[in-house]
Protein backbone atom coordinates (compact mmCIF):
# COMPACT_ATOMS: atom_id res chain seq x y z
CA UNK A 1 0.00 0.00 0.00
CA UNK A 2 1.41 3.33 -1.04
CA UNK A 3 1.10 6.43 1.06
CA UNK A 4 -0.96 8.06 -1.67
CA UNK A 5 -3.67 5.37 -1.66
CA UNK A 6 -7.11 6.71 -0.88
CA UNK A 7 -9.62 4.87 1.28
CA UNK A 8 -12.06 4.69 -1.61
CA UNK A 9 -11.25 5.81 -5.12
CA UNK A 10 -13.15 5.71 -8.38
CA UNK A 11 -10.90 6.02 -11.41
CA UNK A 12 -12.50 6.92 -14.75
CA UNK A 13 -15.68 4.96 -14.08
CA UNK A 14 -18.09 4.51 -16.99
CA UNK A 15 -21.51 2.91 -17.08
CA UNK A 16 -23.72 2.14 -20.06
CA UNK A 17 -27.33 1.05 -20.11
CA UNK A 18 -27.61 -0.41 -23.59
CA UNK A 19 -26.63 2.47 -25.87
CA UNK A 20 -27.26 5.10 -23.20
CA UNK A 21 -24.15 6.50 -21.57
CA UNK A 22 -25.05 6.97 -17.92
CA UNK A 23 -21.54 7.80 -16.72
CA UNK A 24 -18.40 8.63 -18.67
CA UNK A 25 -14.94 8.69 -17.06
CA UNK A 26 -16.01 9.88 -13.63
CA UNK A 27 -13.28 9.96 -10.98
CA UNK A 28 -13.34 10.83 -7.31
CA UNK A 29 -11.80 9.80 -4.04
CA UNK A 30 -12.43 10.06 -0.34
CA UNK A 31 -10.22 9.61 2.72
CA UNK A 32 -10.91 8.85 6.35
CA UNK A 33 -12.15 11.95 8.14
CA UNK A 34 -13.10 13.70 4.92
CA UNK A 35 -16.35 14.59 3.20
CA UNK A 36 -16.51 14.32 -0.57
CA UNK A 37 -19.63 15.84 -2.08
CA UNK A 38 -21.08 14.61 -5.34
CA UNK A 39 -23.24 17.29 -6.85
CA UNK A 40 -25.50 17.14 -9.83
CA UNK A 41 -28.93 17.99 -11.08
CA UNK A 42 -31.59 15.36 -11.71
CA UNK A 43 -30.39 12.94 -14.38
CA UNK A 44 -26.75 13.90 -13.95
CA UNK A 45 -25.80 10.31 -13.09
CA UNK A 46 -25.60 10.65 -9.30
CA UNK A 47 -27.72 7.64 -8.55
CA UNK A 48 -25.94 5.45 -11.11
CA UNK A 49 -22.67 6.48 -9.54
CA UNK A 50 -23.63 5.64 -5.97
CA UNK A 51 -25.15 2.34 -7.07
CA UNK A 52 -21.71 1.44 -8.43
CA UNK A 53 -19.93 2.62 -5.26
CA UNK A 54 -22.36 0.73 -3.04
CA UNK A 55 -22.14 -2.49 -5.04
CA UNK A 56 -25.70 -2.50 -6.37
CA UNK A 57 -24.51 -2.11 -9.99
CA UNK A 58 -21.29 -3.02 -11.79
CA UNK A 59 -19.32 -0.49 -13.74
CA UNK A 60 -18.47 -1.13 -17.39
CA UNK A 61 -15.12 0.63 -17.54
CA UNK A 62 -12.65 2.19 -15.12
CA UNK A 63 -11.43 1.01 -11.75
CA UNK A 64 -12.78 1.01 -8.22
CA UNK A 65 -10.10 0.96 -5.53
CA UNK A 66 -10.29 0.42 -1.80
CA UNK A 67 -7.03 1.41 -0.09
CA UNK A 68 -5.29 1.25 -3.44
CA UNK A 69 -6.44 -2.24 -4.32
CA UNK A 70 -8.82 -2.76 -7.18
CA UNK A 71 -12.13 -4.34 -6.14
CA UNK A 72 -15.18 -5.76 -7.90
CA UNK A 73 -18.40 -5.59 -5.92
CA UNK A 74 -20.91 -8.30 -6.84
CA UNK A 75 -23.54 -7.09 -4.37
CA UNK A 76 -24.10 -4.49 -1.64
CA UNK A 77 -23.02 -7.21 0.79
CA UNK A 78 -19.53 -7.22 -0.78
CA UNK A 79 -19.32 -3.47 -0.36
CA UNK A 80 -20.46 -3.72 3.25
CA UNK A 81 -17.78 -6.31 3.93
CA UNK A 82 -15.23 -3.67 2.87
CA UNK A 83 -16.80 -1.21 5.30
CA UNK A 84 -18.80 0.73 2.73
CA UNK A 85 -22.29 1.46 4.02
CA UNK A 86 -25.03 3.23 2.11
CA UNK A 87 -27.88 5.11 3.72
CA UNK A 88 -30.72 5.49 1.24
CA UNK A 89 -33.15 8.33 1.47
CA UNK A 90 -36.35 6.39 2.07
CA UNK A 91 -35.26 2.83 2.69
CA UNK A 92 -33.27 3.24 5.85
CA UNK A 93 -35.83 2.44 8.54
CA UNK A 94 -39.06 0.56 9.25
CA UNK A 95 -41.43 3.28 10.47
CA UNK A 96 -43.63 1.11 12.71
CA UNK A 97 -40.67 -0.33 14.64
CA UNK A 98 -39.09 1.30 17.66
CA UNK A 99 -35.73 3.05 17.37
CA UNK A 100 -33.80 0.30 19.17
CA UNK A 101 -35.42 -2.48 17.12
CA UNK A 102 -34.59 -0.61 13.93
CA UNK A 103 -31.06 0.13 15.01
CA UNK A 104 -30.22 -3.56 15.42
CA UNK A 105 -32.50 -4.99 12.72
CA UNK A 106 -30.55 -7.71 10.93
CA UNK A 107 -27.71 -7.62 13.50
CA UNK A 108 -29.41 -8.29 16.81
CA UNK A 109 -27.17 -8.78 19.85
CA UNK A 110 -28.06 -12.03 21.61
CA UNK A 111 -27.76 -13.50 25.05
CA UNK A 112 -28.04 -17.07 26.33
CA UNK A 113 -26.92 -20.48 25.07
CA UNK A 114 -27.93 -22.69 22.16
CA UNK A 115 -31.53 -22.51 20.98
CA UNK A 116 -32.48 -20.53 24.07
CA UNK A 117 -30.89 -17.34 22.89
CA UNK A 118 -32.80 -14.15 23.06
CA UNK A 119 -32.50 -10.64 21.67
CA UNK A 120 -30.70 -8.70 24.39
CA UNK A 121 -33.08 -5.76 24.50
CA UNK A 122 -31.58 -4.13 27.59
CA UNK A 123 -28.12 -3.77 26.11
CA UNK A 124 -29.60 -2.89 22.71
CA UNK A 125 -31.41 0.05 24.28
CA UNK A 126 -28.32 1.06 26.22
CA UNK A 127 -26.11 0.98 23.12
CA UNK A 128 -28.65 2.97 21.10
CA UNK A 129 -28.83 5.66 23.75
CA UNK A 130 -25.03 5.83 24.02
CA UNK A 131 -24.35 5.84 20.28
CA UNK A 132 -26.97 8.47 19.58
CA UNK A 133 -25.80 10.73 22.35
CA UNK A 134 -22.20 10.40 21.10
CA UNK A 135 -23.47 11.69 17.78
CA UNK A 136 -25.21 14.46 19.67
CA UNK A 137 -28.65 13.08 18.84
CA UNK A 138 -31.10 13.61 21.65
CA UNK A 139 -33.86 11.01 21.66
CA UNK A 140 -36.53 10.98 24.29
CA UNK A 141 -37.25 7.27 24.31
CA UNK A 142 -35.65 4.41 22.34
CA UNK A 143 -39.07 2.68 22.40
CA UNK A 144 -40.54 5.39 20.22
CA UNK A 145 -41.56 4.17 16.74
CA UNK A 146 -39.25 5.57 14.09
CA UNK A 147 -42.31 6.87 12.26
CA UNK A 148 -42.78 9.50 14.96
CA UNK A 149 -39.30 10.92 14.32
CA UNK A 150 -38.84 13.80 11.96
CA UNK A 151 -37.15 13.14 8.63
CA UNK A 152 -33.88 14.63 9.81
CA UNK A 153 -33.84 12.56 12.99
CA UNK A 154 -34.54 9.43 10.96
CA UNK A 155 -31.57 10.11 8.70
CA UNK A 156 -29.43 10.83 11.73
CA UNK A 157 -30.32 7.54 13.41
CA UNK A 158 -29.52 5.73 10.16
CA UNK A 159 -26.13 7.47 10.04
CA UNK A 160 -25.41 6.58 13.66
CA UNK A 161 -26.33 2.97 12.95
CA UNK A 162 -23.98 2.73 9.96
CA UNK A 163 -21.15 4.26 11.99
CA UNK A 164 -21.78 1.91 14.92
CA UNK A 165 -21.65 -1.15 12.66
CA UNK A 166 -18.18 -0.25 11.53
CA UNK A 167 -18.74 1.75 8.38
CA UNK A 168 -15.45 3.25 7.19
CA UNK A 169 -17.06 4.80 4.15
CA UNK A 170 -20.54 6.21 4.49
CA UNK A 171 -22.50 6.93 1.32
CA UNK A 172 -25.43 9.25 1.92
CA UNK A 173 -27.96 9.43 -0.89
CA UNK A 174 -29.63 12.84 -0.87
CA UNK A 175 -30.05 12.86 2.91
CA UNK A 176 -31.20 16.46 2.98
CA UNK A 177 -33.27 16.79 -0.18
CA UNK A 178 -36.66 16.04 1.39
CA UNK A 179 -36.00 18.17 4.45
CA UNK A 180 -36.68 21.72 5.44
CA UNK A 181 -33.87 24.16 6.20
CA UNK A 182 -33.64 23.47 9.92
CA UNK A 183 -33.87 19.69 9.58
CA UNK A 184 -31.26 19.71 6.83
CA UNK A 185 -28.98 21.61 9.19
CA UNK A 186 -29.40 18.85 11.76
CA UNK A 187 -28.35 16.19 9.26
CA UNK A 188 -25.37 18.26 8.09
CA UNK A 189 -24.23 18.47 11.70
CA UNK A 190 -24.27 14.66 11.97
CA UNK A 191 -22.33 14.34 8.75
CA UNK A 192 -19.59 16.41 10.40
CA UNK A 193 -19.88 14.29 13.57
CA UNK A 194 -19.35 11.13 11.53
CA UNK A 195 -16.39 12.77 9.76
CA UNK A 196 -14.83 13.76 13.09
CA UNK A 197 -15.06 10.13 14.18
CA UNK A 198 -12.83 9.22 11.25
CA UNK A 199 -15.46 8.09 8.78
CA UNK A 200 -15.04 8.87 5.10
CA UNK A 201 -18.30 10.40 3.94
CA UNK A 202 -19.62 10.57 0.39
CA UNK A 203 -22.46 13.05 0.38
CA UNK A 204 -24.72 13.06 -2.67
CA UNK A 205 -26.85 16.14 -3.12
CA UNK A 206 -28.20 18.58 -5.68
CA UNK A 207 -27.93 21.48 -3.27
CA UNK A 208 -24.59 23.36 -3.32
CA UNK A 209 -25.63 25.31 -0.23
CA UNK A 210 -25.81 22.07 1.72
CA UNK A 211 -22.60 20.71 0.22
CA UNK A 212 -20.29 23.69 0.55
CA UNK A 213 -20.23 24.10 4.36
CA UNK A 214 -19.48 20.42 5.05
CA UNK A 215 -17.49 19.26 2.03
CA UNK A 216 -13.72 18.87 1.69
CA UNK A 217 -13.90 17.93 -1.97
CA UNK A 218 -16.54 18.53 -4.62
CA UNK A 219 -17.26 16.48 -7.71
CA UNK A 220 -19.78 18.00 -10.07
CA UNK A 221 -21.65 15.73 -12.43
CA UNK A 222 -23.55 16.88 -15.50
CA UNK A 223 -25.12 14.56 -18.06
CA UNK A 224 -23.02 11.66 -16.85
CA UNK A 225 -19.73 13.51 -17.07
CA UNK A 226 -17.57 15.08 -14.43
CA UNK A 227 -17.35 18.87 -14.67
CA UNK A 228 -14.47 18.86 -12.26
CA UNK A 229 -13.07 17.59 -9.00
CA UNK A 230 -12.15 20.39 -6.65
CA UNK A 231 -10.68 20.69 -3.19
CA UNK A 232 -12.43 23.25 -1.05
CA UNK A 233 -9.48 25.65 -1.40
CA UNK A 234 -9.78 25.58 -5.19
CA UNK A 235 -13.38 26.68 -5.43
CA UNK A 236 -15.62 29.19 -3.70
CA UNK A 237 -19.31 28.94 -3.09
CA UNK A 238 -20.55 31.19 -5.95
CA UNK A 239 -18.41 29.27 -8.41
CA UNK A 240 -19.79 25.96 -7.11
CA UNK A 241 -23.34 27.25 -7.45
CA UNK A 242 -22.58 28.47 -10.95
CA UNK A 243 -21.09 25.14 -12.01
CA UNK A 244 -23.94 23.27 -10.41
CA UNK A 245 -26.57 25.29 -12.21
CA UNK A 246 -24.84 24.65 -15.47
CA UNK A 247 -23.21 28.13 -15.72
CA UNK A 248 -23.77 29.06 -19.35
CA UNK A 249 -27.29 27.59 -19.41
CA UNK A 250 -28.29 29.72 -16.47
CA UNK A 251 -26.84 32.77 -18.17
CA UNK A 252 -28.91 32.05 -21.25
CA UNK A 253 -32.02 31.57 -19.16
CA UNK A 254 -31.42 34.93 -17.48
CA UNK A 255 -31.06 36.49 -20.89
CA UNK A 256 -34.33 34.99 -22.11
CA UNK A 257 -36.17 36.12 -19.02
CA UNK A 258 -34.83 39.66 -19.51
CA UNK A 259 -36.13 39.57 -23.07
CA UNK A 260 -39.58 38.49 -21.90
CA UNK A 261 -39.60 41.24 -19.31
CA UNK A 262 -38.68 43.80 -21.93
CA UNK A 263 -41.61 42.70 -24.10
CA UNK A 264 -44.09 43.14 -21.28
Amino acid at each position, binding site marked *: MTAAAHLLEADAISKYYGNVVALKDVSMHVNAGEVTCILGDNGAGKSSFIKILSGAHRHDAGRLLVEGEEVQFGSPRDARAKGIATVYQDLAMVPLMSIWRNFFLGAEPRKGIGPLRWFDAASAKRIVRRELSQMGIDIRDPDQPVG*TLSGGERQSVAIARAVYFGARVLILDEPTSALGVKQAGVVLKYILQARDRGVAVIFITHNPHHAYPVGDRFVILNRGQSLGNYAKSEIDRPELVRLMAGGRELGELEHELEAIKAEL
Partner: protein
Amino acid sequence: MTEPAAATTTPDERLVRVGPLARVLTRPDIGALLGAIAVFFAFAYFARAVNWIGEPAIAASWTDQAAQFGIVAVPVALLMIGGEFDLSAGAMIGSSGLLLGYLATFQGLNIWPAMAIVLLFGLAVGFVNGLVVIRTNLPSFIVTLATFFVLQGVNAALTLNLTGTTAIQEIDSATGFDSARRFFASELTQYDFKVKVLWWIGLTLAGAWLLAKSRFGNWIYGAGGDPVAARNVGVPVARTKITLFMMTSGVAALMGIITAFELRSIQAKEGIGLEFVFIICAVVGGCLLTGGYGSVIGTFFGAAMLGMVQLGIIFAEWDSNWTFTFQGAILFAAVMLNTVIRNRAQGSR
Protein backbone atom coordinates in the same frame (compact mmCIF):
# COMPACT_ATOMS: atom_id res chain seq x y z
CA MET B 1 -45.23 21.26 41.63
CA THR B 2 -42.05 20.35 39.83
CA GLU B 3 -40.56 22.37 37.05
CA PRO B 4 -42.04 21.45 33.69
CA ALA B 5 -39.55 19.22 31.86
CA ALA B 6 -40.27 20.93 28.57
CA ALA B 7 -38.34 23.96 29.74
CA THR B 8 -35.04 22.06 29.78
CA THR B 9 -35.35 19.82 26.72
CA THR B 10 -35.82 21.36 23.33
CA PRO B 11 -39.38 20.55 22.25
CA ASP B 12 -39.25 18.79 18.91
CA GLU B 13 -40.80 20.47 15.94
CA ARG B 14 -43.71 18.26 15.05
CA LEU B 15 -43.90 15.69 17.80
CA VAL B 16 -47.21 15.37 19.56
CA ARG B 17 -46.87 14.87 23.30
CA VAL B 18 -48.79 11.78 24.37
CA GLY B 19 -50.01 11.50 27.92
CA PRO B 20 -49.45 8.23 29.81
CA LEU B 21 -53.16 7.36 29.80
CA ALA B 22 -53.51 7.80 26.05
CA ARG B 23 -50.35 5.77 25.58
CA VAL B 24 -51.72 2.85 27.59
CA LEU B 25 -55.11 2.98 25.86
CA THR B 26 -53.54 2.82 22.43
CA ARG B 27 -51.40 -0.20 23.23
CA PRO B 28 -52.98 -3.00 21.22
CA ASP B 29 -53.00 -5.57 24.02
CA ILE B 30 -54.55 -3.19 26.55
CA GLY B 31 -57.26 -2.19 24.08
CA ALA B 32 -58.14 -5.85 23.48
CA LEU B 33 -58.12 -6.55 27.24
CA LEU B 34 -60.54 -3.69 27.89
CA GLY B 35 -62.73 -4.92 25.04
CA ALA B 36 -62.78 -8.44 26.49
CA ILE B 37 -63.68 -7.10 29.93
CA ALA B 38 -66.49 -5.03 28.42
CA VAL B 39 -67.90 -8.08 26.59
CA PHE B 40 -67.62 -10.14 29.78
CA PHE B 41 -69.70 -7.69 31.80
CA ALA B 42 -72.15 -7.13 28.96
CA PHE B 43 -73.02 -10.83 29.02
CA ALA B 44 -73.11 -10.81 32.78
CA TYR B 45 -76.16 -8.62 32.18
CA PHE B 46 -77.66 -10.21 29.05
CA ALA B 47 -77.13 -13.77 30.29
CA ARG B 48 -78.30 -12.98 33.82
CA ALA B 49 -80.63 -15.99 33.71
CA VAL B 50 -77.48 -18.04 34.42
CA ASN B 51 -74.63 -17.30 36.82
CA TRP B 52 -72.31 -15.97 34.05
CA ILE B 53 -69.70 -14.54 36.41
CA GLY B 54 -69.67 -17.07 39.22
CA GLU B 55 -70.32 -20.45 37.62
CA PRO B 56 -67.05 -22.26 36.73
CA ALA B 57 -68.80 -24.59 34.28
CA ILE B 58 -69.80 -21.56 32.21
CA ALA B 59 -66.26 -20.24 32.26
CA ALA B 60 -65.13 -23.72 31.21
CA SER B 61 -67.43 -23.63 28.20
CA TRP B 62 -66.46 -20.20 26.93
CA THR B 63 -62.74 -20.76 27.46
CA ASP B 64 -63.13 -24.01 25.49
CA GLN B 65 -64.59 -21.99 22.63
CA ALA B 66 -61.95 -19.27 23.01
CA ALA B 67 -59.14 -21.85 22.87
CA GLN B 68 -60.74 -23.22 19.69
CA PHE B 69 -60.13 -19.80 18.15
CA GLY B 70 -57.05 -18.72 20.07
CA ILE B 71 -54.62 -21.58 19.43
CA VAL B 72 -54.34 -21.06 15.67
CA ALA B 73 -54.82 -17.30 16.08
CA VAL B 74 -51.33 -17.12 17.68
CA PRO B 75 -49.37 -18.04 14.51
CA VAL B 76 -51.97 -16.26 12.35
CA ALA B 77 -51.20 -13.07 14.31
CA LEU B 78 -47.44 -13.55 13.91
CA LEU B 79 -47.96 -14.15 10.19
CA MET B 80 -50.03 -10.97 9.90
CA ILE B 81 -47.36 -8.97 11.71
CA GLY B 82 -44.97 -10.50 9.18
CA GLY B 83 -47.15 -8.99 6.47
CA GLU B 84 -48.99 -12.06 5.17
CA PHE B 85 -52.34 -13.88 5.47
CA ASP B 86 -53.26 -17.52 5.62
CA LEU B 87 -56.84 -18.23 4.57
CA SER B 88 -56.16 -21.97 4.45
CA ALA B 89 -55.66 -22.29 8.22
CA GLY B 90 -59.29 -23.28 8.84
CA ALA B 91 -59.45 -25.96 6.14
CA MET B 92 -56.06 -27.23 7.33
CA ILE B 93 -57.71 -28.21 10.65
CA GLY B 94 -60.10 -30.47 8.76
CA SER B 95 -57.39 -31.87 6.47
CA SER B 96 -55.14 -32.70 9.43
CA GLY B 97 -57.88 -34.30 11.48
CA LEU B 98 -59.00 -36.37 8.50
CA LEU B 99 -55.45 -37.43 7.76
CA LEU B 100 -55.02 -38.50 11.39
CA GLY B 101 -58.30 -40.43 11.23
CA TYR B 102 -57.30 -42.07 7.96
CA LEU B 103 -53.88 -43.14 9.24
CA ALA B 104 -55.31 -44.39 12.55
CA THR B 105 -58.34 -46.27 11.23
CA PHE B 106 -57.68 -47.20 7.60
CA GLN B 107 -53.94 -47.76 7.98
CA GLY B 108 -54.15 -49.06 11.54
CA LEU B 109 -51.21 -46.91 12.58
CA ASN B 110 -50.46 -46.24 16.25
CA ILE B 111 -51.76 -42.76 17.09
CA TRP B 112 -48.35 -41.33 18.05
CA PRO B 113 -46.53 -41.86 14.72
CA ALA B 114 -49.76 -40.90 12.98
CA MET B 115 -49.64 -37.54 14.81
CA ALA B 116 -46.03 -37.02 13.79
CA ILE B 117 -46.97 -37.57 10.13
CA VAL B 118 -49.89 -35.13 10.45
CA LEU B 119 -47.63 -32.43 11.91
CA LEU B 120 -45.10 -32.94 9.12
CA PHE B 121 -47.94 -32.68 6.63
CA GLY B 122 -48.94 -29.36 8.24
CA LEU B 123 -45.42 -27.98 8.00
CA ALA B 124 -45.19 -29.11 4.37
CA VAL B 125 -48.42 -27.34 3.39
CA GLY B 126 -47.15 -24.18 5.10
CA PHE B 127 -43.85 -24.48 3.27
CA VAL B 128 -45.65 -24.71 -0.08
CA ASN B 129 -47.86 -21.72 0.80
CA GLY B 130 -44.82 -19.66 1.77
CA LEU B 131 -42.68 -20.72 -1.16
CA VAL B 132 -45.41 -19.92 -3.69
CA VAL B 133 -46.01 -16.50 -2.10
CA ILE B 134 -42.29 -15.66 -2.11
CA ARG B 135 -41.54 -17.03 -5.58
CA THR B 136 -44.55 -15.60 -7.39
CA ASN B 137 -44.74 -12.36 -5.45
CA LEU B 138 -48.52 -12.78 -5.50
CA PRO B 139 -50.53 -11.56 -2.50
CA SER B 140 -50.76 -14.31 0.12
CA PHE B 141 -54.48 -13.57 0.29
CA ILE B 142 -54.90 -15.08 -3.18
CA VAL B 143 -52.38 -17.90 -2.82
CA THR B 144 -53.83 -19.21 0.44
CA LEU B 145 -57.38 -18.70 -0.82
CA ALA B 146 -56.44 -21.15 -3.56
CA THR B 147 -54.95 -23.54 -0.98
CA PHE B 148 -58.15 -23.21 1.05
CA PHE B 149 -60.34 -24.27 -1.90
CA VAL B 150 -58.00 -27.07 -2.91
CA LEU B 151 -58.01 -28.48 0.63
CA GLN B 152 -61.76 -28.06 1.00
CA GLY B 153 -62.35 -30.10 -2.16
CA VAL B 154 -59.81 -32.75 -1.22
CA ASN B 155 -61.29 -33.09 2.27
CA ALA B 156 -64.83 -33.62 0.98
CA ALA B 157 -64.01 -35.81 -2.02
CA LEU B 158 -61.52 -38.16 -0.35
CA THR B 159 -63.67 -38.57 2.75
CA LEU B 160 -66.69 -39.51 0.65
CA ASN B 161 -64.54 -41.81 -1.45
CA LEU B 162 -63.11 -43.58 1.61
CA THR B 163 -66.12 -43.84 3.86
CA GLY B 164 -69.14 -43.25 1.68
CA THR B 165 -70.13 -40.59 4.24
CA THR B 166 -69.00 -37.07 5.12
CA ALA B 167 -66.92 -38.03 8.16
CA ILE B 168 -64.24 -40.39 9.39
CA GLN B 169 -65.54 -42.16 12.49
CA GLU B 170 -64.15 -44.24 15.34
CA ILE B 171 -60.74 -42.66 15.53
CA ASP B 172 -60.70 -43.83 19.17
CA SER B 173 -60.26 -47.39 17.94
CA ALA B 174 -56.61 -46.57 17.21
CA THR B 175 -53.91 -48.00 19.46
CA GLY B 176 -52.49 -45.42 21.84
CA PHE B 177 -55.60 -43.21 21.53
CA ASP B 178 -56.37 -43.03 25.23
CA SER B 179 -52.78 -42.39 26.31
CA ALA B 180 -52.49 -39.53 23.82
CA ARG B 181 -55.93 -38.13 24.54
CA ARG B 182 -54.78 -37.11 28.01
CA PHE B 183 -52.45 -34.53 26.48
CA PHE B 184 -54.81 -33.14 23.87
CA ALA B 185 -58.42 -33.47 24.88
CA SER B 186 -58.84 -34.37 28.54
CA GLU B 187 -60.75 -32.40 31.15
CA LEU B 188 -59.14 -30.55 34.04
CA THR B 189 -60.78 -30.15 37.46
CA GLN B 190 -64.35 -31.18 38.21
CA TYR B 191 -65.69 -28.25 36.16
CA ASP B 192 -64.47 -29.78 32.90
CA PHE B 193 -62.01 -27.09 31.87
CA LYS B 194 -60.43 -28.42 28.70
CA VAL B 195 -56.70 -29.17 28.45
CA LYS B 196 -56.95 -27.27 25.16
CA VAL B 197 -57.08 -24.10 27.24
CA LEU B 198 -53.57 -24.84 28.52
CA TRP B 199 -52.37 -25.27 24.93
CA TRP B 200 -53.92 -21.89 24.14
CA ILE B 201 -52.20 -20.17 27.07
CA GLY B 202 -48.90 -21.94 26.43
CA LEU B 203 -48.81 -21.12 22.72
CA THR B 204 -49.74 -17.52 23.50
CA LEU B 205 -46.82 -17.19 25.94
CA ALA B 206 -44.45 -18.85 23.47
CA GLY B 207 -45.63 -16.60 20.63
CA ALA B 208 -45.39 -13.47 22.77
CA TRP B 209 -41.87 -14.40 23.85
CA LEU B 210 -40.85 -15.09 20.27
CA LEU B 211 -42.15 -11.76 19.07
CA ALA B 212 -40.84 -9.59 21.87
CA LYS B 213 -37.62 -11.29 22.95
CA SER B 214 -36.14 -13.23 20.07
CA ARG B 215 -34.14 -12.19 17.04
CA PHE B 216 -36.74 -13.91 14.89
CA GLY B 217 -39.36 -11.61 16.43
CA ASN B 218 -37.43 -8.57 15.28
CA TRP B 219 -37.27 -10.07 11.81
CA ILE B 220 -41.06 -10.59 11.84
CA TYR B 221 -41.61 -6.90 12.56
CA GLY B 222 -39.09 -5.92 9.89
CA ALA B 223 -40.38 -8.30 7.21
CA GLY B 224 -43.91 -7.05 7.74
CA GLY B 225 -43.17 -3.37 8.31
CA ASP B 226 -40.93 -2.73 5.33
CA PRO B 227 -39.52 -5.79 3.55
CA VAL B 228 -37.21 -3.75 1.32
CA ALA B 229 -35.62 -1.87 4.21
CA ALA B 230 -35.37 -5.11 6.21
CA ARG B 231 -33.64 -6.90 3.34
CA ASN B 232 -31.28 -3.96 2.91
CA VAL B 233 -30.03 -4.36 6.47
CA GLY B 234 -29.60 -8.12 6.19
CA VAL B 235 -32.86 -9.68 7.41
CA PRO B 236 -33.60 -12.99 5.60
CA VAL B 237 -37.12 -11.85 4.70
CA ALA B 238 -38.04 -14.86 2.53
CA ARG B 239 -36.93 -17.36 5.18
CA THR B 240 -38.80 -15.45 7.89
CA LYS B 241 -42.06 -15.46 5.94
CA ILE B 242 -41.83 -19.12 4.91
CA THR B 243 -41.17 -20.06 8.56
CA LEU B 244 -44.28 -18.12 9.59
CA PHE B 245 -46.42 -19.94 7.02
CA MET B 246 -45.05 -23.27 8.30
CA MET B 247 -45.84 -22.29 11.89
CA THR B 248 -49.40 -21.39 10.93
CA SER B 249 -50.13 -24.63 9.06
CA GLY B 250 -48.27 -26.62 11.70
CA VAL B 251 -50.39 -25.22 14.53
CA ALA B 252 -53.53 -25.72 12.41
CA ALA B 253 -52.48 -29.38 12.14
CA LEU B 254 -52.12 -29.49 15.93
CA MET B 255 -55.64 -28.09 16.19
CA GLY B 256 -56.85 -30.82 13.83
CA ILE B 257 -55.26 -33.40 16.12
CA ILE B 258 -56.91 -31.86 19.19
CA THR B 259 -60.27 -31.83 17.41
CA ALA B 260 -59.94 -35.48 16.41
CA PHE B 261 -59.23 -36.45 20.02
CA GLU B 262 -62.15 -34.41 21.33
CA LEU B 263 -64.78 -35.59 18.90
CA ARG B 264 -63.37 -39.07 18.16
CA SER B 265 -64.49 -38.43 14.59
CA ILE B 266 -63.87 -35.71 12.01
CA GLN B 267 -66.31 -34.11 9.62
CA ALA B 268 -65.02 -33.29 6.12
CA LYS B 269 -65.99 -29.65 6.57
CA GLU B 270 -64.32 -29.30 9.98
CA GLY B 271 -62.60 -25.94 10.47
CA ILE B 272 -64.07 -24.24 7.41
CA GLY B 273 -64.96 -20.65 8.26
CA LEU B 274 -62.58 -20.46 11.19
CA GLU B 275 -59.85 -18.87 9.03
CA PHE B 276 -61.72 -15.57 9.22
CA VAL B 277 -62.29 -15.88 12.97
CA PHE B 278 -58.52 -16.29 13.47
CA ILE B 279 -57.95 -13.11 11.48
CA ILE B 280 -60.59 -11.27 13.54
CA CYS B 281 -58.80 -12.36 16.75
CA ALA B 282 -55.51 -11.05 15.37
CA VAL B 283 -57.06 -7.76 14.27
CA VAL B 284 -58.63 -7.30 17.72
CA GLY B 285 -55.11 -7.94 19.01
CA GLY B 286 -53.93 -4.89 17.10
CA CYS B 287 -52.49 -6.65 14.03
CA LEU B 288 -52.59 -4.38 11.01
CA LEU B 289 -53.77 -5.78 7.70
CA THR B 290 -50.69 -4.17 6.18
CA GLY B 291 -48.30 -5.93 8.58
CA GLY B 292 -45.53 -4.73 10.85
CA TYR B 293 -47.58 -4.20 13.97
CA GLY B 294 -49.64 -6.19 16.44
CA SER B 295 -49.64 -8.20 19.64
CA VAL B 296 -49.92 -11.88 20.51
CA ILE B 297 -51.23 -11.07 23.99
CA GLY B 298 -53.84 -8.83 22.39
CA THR B 299 -54.79 -11.69 20.08
CA PHE B 300 -55.29 -13.84 23.18
CA PHE B 301 -57.83 -11.34 24.51
CA GLY B 302 -59.40 -11.17 21.05
CA ALA B 303 -59.97 -14.93 21.11
CA ALA B 304 -61.35 -14.67 24.65
CA MET B 305 -63.73 -11.96 23.48
CA LEU B 306 -65.01 -14.00 20.54
CA GLY B 307 -65.34 -17.11 22.71
CA MET B 308 -67.46 -15.17 25.20
CA VAL B 309 -69.64 -13.76 22.42
CA GLN B 310 -70.26 -17.21 20.97
CA LEU B 311 -71.25 -18.76 24.31
CA GLY B 312 -72.82 -15.62 25.74
CA ILE B 313 -75.35 -15.51 22.91
CA ILE B 314 -76.34 -19.10 23.71
CA PHE B 315 -76.67 -18.42 27.43
CA ALA B 316 -78.62 -15.23 26.75
CA GLU B 317 -80.93 -17.44 24.67
CA TRP B 318 -80.62 -15.31 21.54
CA ASP B 319 -80.66 -16.71 18.04
CA SER B 320 -77.08 -17.94 17.55
CA ASN B 321 -77.02 -16.48 14.02
CA TRP B 322 -76.36 -13.14 15.71
CA THR B 323 -72.83 -14.42 16.48
CA PHE B 324 -71.74 -13.48 12.97
CA THR B 325 -73.13 -9.99 13.35
CA PHE B 326 -71.26 -9.56 16.60
CA GLN B 327 -68.05 -10.83 15.04
CA GLY B 328 -68.46 -8.37 12.20
CA ALA B 329 -69.11 -5.48 14.57
CA ILE B 330 -66.08 -6.41 16.70
CA LEU B 331 -63.89 -6.62 13.58
CA PHE B 332 -65.05 -3.23 12.41
CA ALA B 333 -64.50 -1.57 15.79
CA ALA B 334 -61.03 -3.11 16.05
CA VAL B 335 -60.01 -1.98 12.57
CA MET B 336 -61.10 1.57 13.35
CA LEU B 337 -59.11 1.58 16.58
CA ASN B 338 -56.06 0.09 14.86
CA THR B 339 -56.12 2.78 12.21
CA VAL B 340 -55.89 5.42 14.92
CA ILE B 341 -52.97 3.58 16.56
CA ARG B 342 -51.16 3.11 13.27
CA ASN B 343 -51.51 6.73 12.31
CA ARG B 344 -50.07 7.70 15.65
CA ALA B 345 -47.16 5.26 15.35
CA GLN B 346 -46.37 6.37 11.84
CA GLY B 347 -46.69 9.96 12.93
CA SER B 348 -49.07 10.80 10.11
CA ARG B 349 -48.93 14.53 9.80
